[in-house]
C-alpha cells in the first residue's frame, strides 16, 4: 500500500471517530431535553474504530451497553440508531431495544447486551455456528466487553470454552478503569485481565486503546491469526471513560487529576495531531471533517425525530416466532 493510501485509511479512521463523537455528544444534548439516557463511549472511539475496521463483512460482532461506537464503525446509519434510541419505528429494532440492546442483523451485529457479560455468554455459540458452517466461510466473531465484565464468572467460562473448542473468536476487553461507579482498582489486581486471559491459554496483546493506529494494527494481526488457525485471541485495550457511566452523570466521584490526564490523551486529538504533523491533513481539512460529522448527525436527528412512534397495538409483536412450514 502506498504512503498516500495509508494516510487515507488513517484519515477515514479519524472521520469515523469524529462521527461517533458527534453522535454521542448529540445524545447527551437530547437527554438534557428529555430523551432517554445512554451509556456513551466518549474517549473510547479508537477501540471501536481500530477493531471494527479490521473486520470484514462476513464477520460477526457482539457488544455491550457502550455499543454506539462499534455500530457506527460498522457502518450503521446514525439516523436509524438515533431512531432506536428515541423509540421510533425506523430504529434497527423498531424501538424495542433503545440504546441498550441494539442488534443489526444485516450488519452482522448480533447483540448489544446490557446484562454485563451477556455478550460473553453468547459469543462462543455464534463462533461455533461459524465454525460449523453457518454464515460465510472464513468469518470470525469479535466480542467487545468491559473490565467490569471480566469480573463476572461468565468471563472465565467463555474464555475456557473458546480455547477448549478452538473457536474463531476475538475477545476485545475495553479496559476503561470504570465499572459503573466503582473504580477498577477496587475490584481486581492490576494487570489481572491480561493475566487471566493468558491463564486460560489465550494469546494476549495489551495495547494503548487511545491510539487508533496501534489498536488497528493489533486487531489486524489478531484477526489474521484467527482466520489462519481458527483459534481464539484476546486483545486488552487500555482506555478511559471520559464521560459518566450513564447520562446524566456529573462524575463527582471521579478524581479530577485522573480525568484531566486522560482528557489530555483524547484519542481524537491524538489521531488529528498525528495526521496534521504528517501533513496528511491540514487544519482546514480537519475543521471540515468535524463539520461534516456534525452535519450528518443533525440529519440523523431530523430523521429520527420525524420517524413515527410504534403503534401501541404492536406491543406484543415479535415475542414468539410464528411456526412456519418448518413445523
Amino acid at each position, binding site marked *: 500500500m502506498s504512503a498516500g493510501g495509508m494516510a487515507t485509511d488513517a484519515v477515514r479512521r479519524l472521520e469515523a471517530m469524529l462521527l461517533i463523537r458527534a453522535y454521542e455528544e448529540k445524545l447527551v444534548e437530547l437527554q438534557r431535553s428529555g430523551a432517554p439516557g445512554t451509556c456513551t463511549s466518549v474517549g473510547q472511539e479508537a477501540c471501536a474504530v481500530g477493531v471494527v475496521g479490521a473486520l470484514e463483512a462476513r464477520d460477526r460482532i*457482539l457488544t455491550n451497553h457502550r455499543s454506539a461506537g462499534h455500530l457506527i464503525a460498522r457502518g450503521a446509519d446514525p439516523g436509524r440508531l438515533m431512531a432506536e434510541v428515541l423509540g421510533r419505528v425506523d430504529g434497527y429494532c423498531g424501538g424495542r431495544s433503545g440504546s441498550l440492546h441494539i442488534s443489526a442483523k444485516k450488519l452482522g451485529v448480533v447483540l448489544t447486551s446490557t446484562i454485563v457479560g*451477556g455478550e460473553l455468554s*453468547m459469543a462462543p455459540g455464534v463462533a461455533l455456528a461459524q465454525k460449523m458452517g453457518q454464515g460465510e466461510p472464513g468469518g470470525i466473531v469479535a466480542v467487545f466487553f468491559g473490565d467490569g465484565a471480566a469480573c463476572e464468572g461468565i468471563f472465565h467460562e467463555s474464555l475456557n470454552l473458546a480455547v477448549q473448542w478452538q473457536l474463531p473468536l476475538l475477545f476485545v476487553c475495553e479496559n476503561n478503569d470504570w465499572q459503573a461507579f466503582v473504580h477498577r482498582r477496587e475490584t481486581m489486581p492490576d494487570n489481572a485481565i491480561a493475566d487471566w486471559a493468558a491463564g486460560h491459554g489465550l494469546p494476549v496483546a495489551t495495547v494503548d486503546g487511545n491510539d487508533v493506529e496501534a489498536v488497528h494494527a493489533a486487531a489486524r494481526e489478531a484477526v489474521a491469526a484467527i482466520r489462519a488457525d481458527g483459534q481464539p485471541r484476546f486483545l486488552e485495550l487500555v482506555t478511559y471513560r471520559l464521560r459518566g457511566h450513564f447520562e446524566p452523570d456529573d462524575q463527582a466521584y471521579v478524581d479530577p487529576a485522573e480525568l484531566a490526564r486522560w482528557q489530555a490523551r483524547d484519542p481524537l486529538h491524538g489521531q488529528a495531531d498525528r495526521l496534521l504533523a504528517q501533513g496528511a491533513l491540514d487544519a482546514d481539512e480537519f475543521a471540515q471533517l468535524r463539520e461534516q460529522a456534525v452535519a450528518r448527525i443533525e440529519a440523523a436527528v431530523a430523521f429520527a425525530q420525524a420517524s413515527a412512534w410504534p403503534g401501541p397495538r404492536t406491543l406484543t409483536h415479535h415475542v414468539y416466532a410464528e411456526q412456519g412450514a418448518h413445523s
Partner: protein
Amino acid sequence: MTRMTIEQAIHQALAEEMQRDERVLLMGEGVATKRRDLVQAFGATRVRNTPLAEAVIAGTAVGAAASGLRPVIDLLFAPFLAYAMDALVNSAGKLRYLSGGQFEFPLVALSMTGSGWCVGAQHNHNLEAMFAHAPGLKVVMPSTAADVKGLLKAAIRDNNPVLFFTDLALLHQEGEVPDDSAHRVPLGQAAVRRAGTDVTLVSYAKTVEVCLQAAAQLQGQGIAAEVIDLRTLKPLDEATVLNSLRKTGRLVVVTEASGLCGMAAELAALAATRAFDALRAPVVRLTGPDAPGASSWVLEQAALPSADAVVQAVQGMRAEVAVGREALAAS
C-alpha cells in the same frame, strides 16, 4: 407401536431429529459420553461434551441458535437451571423481541426434576412455573413416553426456545410409542386422559397418574372425573380446560410444584376469570408445600398430593354444593 421407557423416547427423538436436520446439535455435561451411538452417527462436532459451566452452555446455545443452528442442551437437573437462567431468560426469551424479530432462538433445554430418587432439593425442584413466567419461552412437561418423544421432536422443530422438563420418577416408566418417525405432538395441546362429566382433574407429569388413580376410585362412588394432562405448560391449552370445566363445573388442579404463583394458581385464575359462571364449587388446588424437596423417602412422598387427597377434595366439593342447596332451600 413399540414399548420403551421415557429415557429411550428422549434418545430416539434426538437421534431422529439429528438425522433429519444437520443443524441440530447436542451439548452438555456428559452427552457425548452417555450417547456414544449419537457421536458415532453424527460426529463429535454435533454431540459435544462441555465443561461444567451451565451459564456458558446455555449462552452458547443461544448464540448458536441466533446464528442458524438448532441446539439441544442437556442441563441435567432442573435446579442447575439457576446457573443458566441469565442466558435462558434474559437472552433466549427476550432477544427475539428486543431485536424486533431480526433473530430467532430455536433451542431446547432439557432437564429432569421431581421426587422419586431421594436426591433432595438441589436435584429436585419443580421450578417450571418460573420459566412459564418468562416471556419468549415455551415450557413442556410430559408424562408418557409417546408424548415425550412427540413433544421433543416438535420442540426441536419449534423456532422458539423451549424448556423441556422430564419427571425423573417417570424416566424408566415404559409406554407405547408410535413407530412412525413422523410422530409428533404439537406444543400447546393438552390431552384428555379420561373423560368424565362431574369434575375436572388437571395435572401434568407424575401427578397425572395420581389423578387417574383418584378417578378410578371416584368411579366406584358414582363420580365421573375427567382427567386432563396439560403436557405443555406454555402455551397453555386453555380451551381444553375451559371446555371440560363448562361440562363439569368443578376443578381440582394437582401439581407436585408448590402452589404460590404456580401452574395451579394460573389454572384457578383461568377458571375464575373465564368460567366463573360455570363453577359449581370453589376451585381446589392440591400442590406440593412451600418447602425445599427433602431427601427422606417418607418426606418426599409426604410432599406429593395423593390420590386419596384428590378423592377427598372432590367429595368435599360435592358436599359443599349439597350444603349450599340446603341452605338455599331453608332460606
